[in-house]
């Protein structure tokens, strides 16, 4: 059965923003209980993909299946039910700035459960312990460093024990130590809690070290996929350019423009 092994399945999805086509007939599968990475250059809509899975935006065409339901077709109430089973770590952390770290982590529990306060207390402290921030429970978000904020946000994201965890650029702007901590946290959460993880990132070495499966997106299409080892052996030059970090290649260094001499001289000649 495909459905029991695949938690999220994206089928032939196209999405454009204005005139710009962001996804063109993209299909990919997220296996249950594994870490799936979606990589690609900045600005190709990796975050958009997560928002599509979360139902915050709808695709122009195609289907997005989350555990046998098609997300874009859900009614509002059903969508909110489904969202309790998925969670997203935002790039900025997105902690609520008017609450302490403790209240931030308690927020989803208070909203969706009727737990007595002392049980809630225990749960929140355990979640904070898991990310190493039990001692920071009473700090306000603006007192945290960037890495701590992201860990606190991670604790909040796993508060409801979601089936699916989506990480939006978790490693961006972190120092090497924090990066190492996050890599360790993501893989241990995945193994200990059996959470299916989707990581959107362009940090090649970190992602390759924890992902079970990698999709490489470019120009609105999947240009390569497989295990990290399969991807390393891939000879497609677009894949090679991204993994090796070459400045110029199939993905051009120049943003599309008319010829340089036209830009420089056309105005003068037209006068």
């Amino acid at each position, binding site marked *: 059965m495909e459905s029991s092994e695949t938690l999220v399945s994206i089928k032939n999805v196209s999405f454009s923003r204005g005139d710009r086509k962001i996804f063109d007939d993209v299909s990919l599968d997220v296996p249950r209980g594994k870490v799936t990475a979606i990589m690609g250059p900045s600005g190709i809509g990796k975050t958009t993909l997560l*928002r599509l899975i*979360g139902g*915050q935006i709808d695709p122009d065409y195609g289907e997005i299946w989350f555990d046998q339901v098609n997300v874009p077709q859900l009614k509002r109430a059903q969508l*909110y*039910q489904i*969202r*309790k089973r*998925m*969670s*997203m770590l*935002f*790039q*900025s952390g*997105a*902690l*609520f*700035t008017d609450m302490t770290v403790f209240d931030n982590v308690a*927020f*989803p529990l208070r*909203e*969706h459960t009727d737990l007595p306060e002392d049980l809630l207390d225990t749960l929140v402290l355990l979640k904070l312990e898991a990310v190493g921030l039990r001692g920071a429970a009473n700090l306000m978000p603006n007192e945290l460093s960037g890495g701590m904020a992201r860990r606190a*946000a991670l604790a909040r994201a796993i508060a*409801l024990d979601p089936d699916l965890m989506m990480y939006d650029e978790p490693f961006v702007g972190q120092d090497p130590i924090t990066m190492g901590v996050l890599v360790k946290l993501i893989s241990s959460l995945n193994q200990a809690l059996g959470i299916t993880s989707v990581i959107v990132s362009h940090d090649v070495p970190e992602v390759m070290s924890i992902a079970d499966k990698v999709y490489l997106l470019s120009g609105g299409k999947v240009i390569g996929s497989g295990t990290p080892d399969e991807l390393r052996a891939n000879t497609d030059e677009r894949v090679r350019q991204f993994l090796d970090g070459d400045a110029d290649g199939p993905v051009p260094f120049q943003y599309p423009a008319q010829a340089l001499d036209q830009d420089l001289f056309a105005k003068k000649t037209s006068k």
Partner: protein
Amino acid sequence: MLIDFIASVGRQGIEKFQTIGRATLLLYGALVSKPQPKKMFPLLMKQLYSVGVLSIAIIMVSGLFIGMVLSLQGYIVLVDFGAETSLGQMVALSLLRELGPVVTALLFAGRAGSALTAEIGLMKATEQLSSMEMMAVDPLRRVIAPRFWAGVISMPLLAMMFSAVGIWGGQLVGVDWKGIDYGSFWSVMQASVELGEDIGNSFIKSVVFAITITWIAVFNGYDAVPTSEGISRATTRTVVNASLAVLGLDFVLTALMFGN
């Protein structure tokens, strides 16, 4: 040329209507839902504090000075006609019918409206609203609704305080400084102020202004472009639009209430 002009007018017109449509949907999403008093109450209390209680100081001080100025100017004119005993009536009616609701509304737009827009806009820019949505919590109900109700509840009360303090300020100048008879100041006022006509209409005005300002403020925040520039524009738009809307609506309401 002409075609281009017509097209751009049309485009702007359509954009305006789309904005009004989005604002209406926002209000609908925030207010039309199953009430959850247990969750709503603490949120509402917090917003009543930051929107209402924190505005009390500026409202009281402004009310005091407006009442004092009104009384002084009124005295200077009335004393020439020997009619200074009508000062109480003049001060009370001006404050209740116009200055109380309108000046409170303008101050409220600047003090609380701009703060609401900036706060919601910043929550949007820092993905707090998005992350709330992903946690299956509707930001319209969690963030917008309590702020809206707090504004609608607190502004009419602030306007009443404004008028009350203003009348007291008027007495300070008229009776305590200029020496009008205490008894005639108050009795003329009591004889001329009607409960429905003056106090009631004053209240209706301030409720209408409160809905307008708070709606404009929360919508501009929610609809802001999530960048620093976008938020600053949204904040400005809130103060400008809310102030103009209040002044325009005031004329309409005054015409309806006192026109005949």
